[in-house]
């Protein structure tokens, strides 16, 4: 047992840190620090920068442009990006559909889709949730009816993040309505320019427009866009959801948020003293730092265990990463709300062109707090996660 990073790992971390410092546009970094939305171009530019370095699809096999990094290095890479803060390579392509295609796609699909994912020439979105299929995802009803060399898709997806930018959607559709619900689902790749697709933004409580409804009205999808076998889509979806073991806790993001909290709490005064000296507040901050340190160590245990993993069963420690990670991220947003105090109040809606009201950093804080409630909902609610742990790990 040696709980320290090796000199090689430390050198690697410095290399990544140096690269980010030299190449990340200041504007992108500032937006992330200040909690303002990125433009599509910010994300695309940065991913292409990483791709030029050979780092965009760091988690893929080398033959498809991956890095061959150890799990520890992959973790350090993500951690450095999150702490910088810099955008991570777009997850829908790089950590979701990409690995599914590599594992289950045809050679043609891999050659056609993987390079544009790496360079973010094509933006992907995820078509899983439906109005009637949230936590009970397998009850989804969007149908794909086979007609000779194509599928005809009808139905509706919801909560589709960043669908407004998307060129493609990987989509779960029902291909066999008679089968048991998990066994009639297929995994389709759908061109978002296809006739019959309508996207409609959903305005979330923070005023944001990042999630969408997507409607399918007799949309024709070539049969060659089926991934793997028909009616095996549920297996691929489970693979996709269980695939990411590192980075899911977003420890680096929470570290960066805690730095921000300390910075702003030192600038803000309360009762004539810096707010950071407020006894109640600083104890809450210290308690959160303990939780985060524990999560970081738990994350490292999971990462280090990857090397000796033989089966595909989740590490007991990995199961807590998503739940704890989401709770901690949400707690950072609560502490920031506390720091800003009364100037949490002014609402500057989209398109606000006037000078900021109050401290220039204040306006985004309450919206981020509201928005981050989503973290314990998306990707399987924390309650669903607990059901999974109870069954898969505790054997209850």
């Amino acid at each position, binding site marked *: *047992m040696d709980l320290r990073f090796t000199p090689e790992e430390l050198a690697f971390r410095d290399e990544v840190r140096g690269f980010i410092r030299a190449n990340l546009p200041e504007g992108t970094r500032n937006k992330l620090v200040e909690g303002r939305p990125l433009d599509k171009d910010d994300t695309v530019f940065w991913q292409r920068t990483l791709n030029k370095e050979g780092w965009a699809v760091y988690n893929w096999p080398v033959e498809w442009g991956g890095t061959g990094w150890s799990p520890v290095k992959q973790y350090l890479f993500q951690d450095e990006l999150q702490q910088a803060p810099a955008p991570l390579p777009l997850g829908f392509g790089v950590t979701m559909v990409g690995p599914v295609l590599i594992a289950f796609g045809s050679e043609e699909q891999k050659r056609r889709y993987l390079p544009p994912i790496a360079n973010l020439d094509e933006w992907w979105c995820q078509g899983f949730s439906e109005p009637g299929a949230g936590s009970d995802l397998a009850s989804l009803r969007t149908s794909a009816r086979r007609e000779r060399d194509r599928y005809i898709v009808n139905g509706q997806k919801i909560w589709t993040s960043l669908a407004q930018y998307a060129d493609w959607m990987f989509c779960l559709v029902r291909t066999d309505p008679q089968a048991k619900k998990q066994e009639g689902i297929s995994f389709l790749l759908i061109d978002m320019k296809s006739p019959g697709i309508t996207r409609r933004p959903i305005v979330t409580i923070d005023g944001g427009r990042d999630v969408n409804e997507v409607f399918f009205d007799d949309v024709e999808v070539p049969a060659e866009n089926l991934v793997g076998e028909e009616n095996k889509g549920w297996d691929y979806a489970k693979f996709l959801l269980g695939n990411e073991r590192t980075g899911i806790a977003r420890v680096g993001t929470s570290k960066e948020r805690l730095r921000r909290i300390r910075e702003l709490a030192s600038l803000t005064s309360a009762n004539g003293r810096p707010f950071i000296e407020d006894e109640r507040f600083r104890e809450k901050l210290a308690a959160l730092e303990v939780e985060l340190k524990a999560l970081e160590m738990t994350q490292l245990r999971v990462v280090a265990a990857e090397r000796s993993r033989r089966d595909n069963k989740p590490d007991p420690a990995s199961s807590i990463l998503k739940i704890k990670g989401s709770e901690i991220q949400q707690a950072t947003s609560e502490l920031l709300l506390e720091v800003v105090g009364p100037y949490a109040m002014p609402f500057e809606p989209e398109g606000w062109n006037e000078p900021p009201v109050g401290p220039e950093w204040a306006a985004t804080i309450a919206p981020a707090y509201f928005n981050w409630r989503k973290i314990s909902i998306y990707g399987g609610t924390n309650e669903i996660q607990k*059901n999974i742990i109870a069954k898969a790990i505790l054997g209850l």
Partner: protein
Amino acid sequence: MDFDLDEEQRLLKESLDRLLSERYAFENRKAYQQSPEGWSREMWAHYAELGLLGLSFAERFGGSEKGAVETMIVMEGFGRALALEPYFATVILGAGFLRYGGSEEQCAALLPQIAAGKLTLAFAHTERDSRYDLAHISTRAVREGEGWVIDGEKGVVLHGDSADRFVVTARTGGGERDREGIGVFLVGAESPGVGRRGYPTQDGLKAAEVTFNRVRVGPEAVLGEPGEALSLVERVVDEAIAALAAEAVGAMAAMHELTLDYLKTRRQFGREIGSFQVLQHRAVDMLMALEQARSMAMYATMMAGEEDGAARSAAVSQAKVQIGRSGRFIAHQAIQLHGGIGMTMEYRVGHYFKRVTMIDSAFGDADHHLKRLARENATRAAA
């Protein structure tokens, strides 16, 4: 970065686990507890044989020169077994003062005896009003000729009832709570002027109130620098907290396992109670608390040897907060999920509950360490 045990560490763990599963069943423990000393001399001899009593000592002092990870393995095993022996008092605390503050002669005289199981120690430090402040000491050590005369009263001295010698903190100068003016002395338990009143503790161990009435010691009794010894105390206590964290993890893991077994066997309403979602989620919450505590016990282990005192103390405080919170949560849930049987003296789970509760109040509870971290946070931000 590697969290796996190496071959030797695995062997250590296996042989300890074997020893404890053969000779430390819950019924054995009850018998040991009822012996006059409240623990087993026979087990103590087995620990010596396994090399546990000199685990971290230099080879020339009869030790095996192991590190903090090995101590973690041993303490976690003792936590699972609810071991009663004065390992923590003697090997972690007492010998810790010798390793970090003892001269070559002192170490050569005492460490081999400890490693061989022939000498036990106890740390006589806490006083009635000192609570968790390590510098709050009113016991006095006054110079007299070559040696010192010690006067004062020490409380809840763990295993002080049976220890052969005490490691005593005393004030050589300064005011009651000053960081300066603290000395550490070795005092034989049978020395003239030493009085002790032994008693059982809530968690089934033993402790004593110890009085020092004009107790004379020679220059060979001094550990570290008289008047400058607080940093020695802090260093040993930091290591001790890391060890306690590992012991607590052992107890927490055992409580979680007992509870899971119970959820899978106890039937009510015509089915296993573990099929109820509200109890399943509680068991998951316990798992999360356990894994977070385990992570922090590892972190404290990694940092226990850190030379930078501020970084070491901060890490240890963080671990103590997590251990205290996780321990209380897991224990409460373990009792609740067991229902009535969890409340009984004859069932194991309540004894783990009592041990983790006492661990929380040893060397600062969760809130004490949280406040300390919070203060340092504010100082760091202001700097």
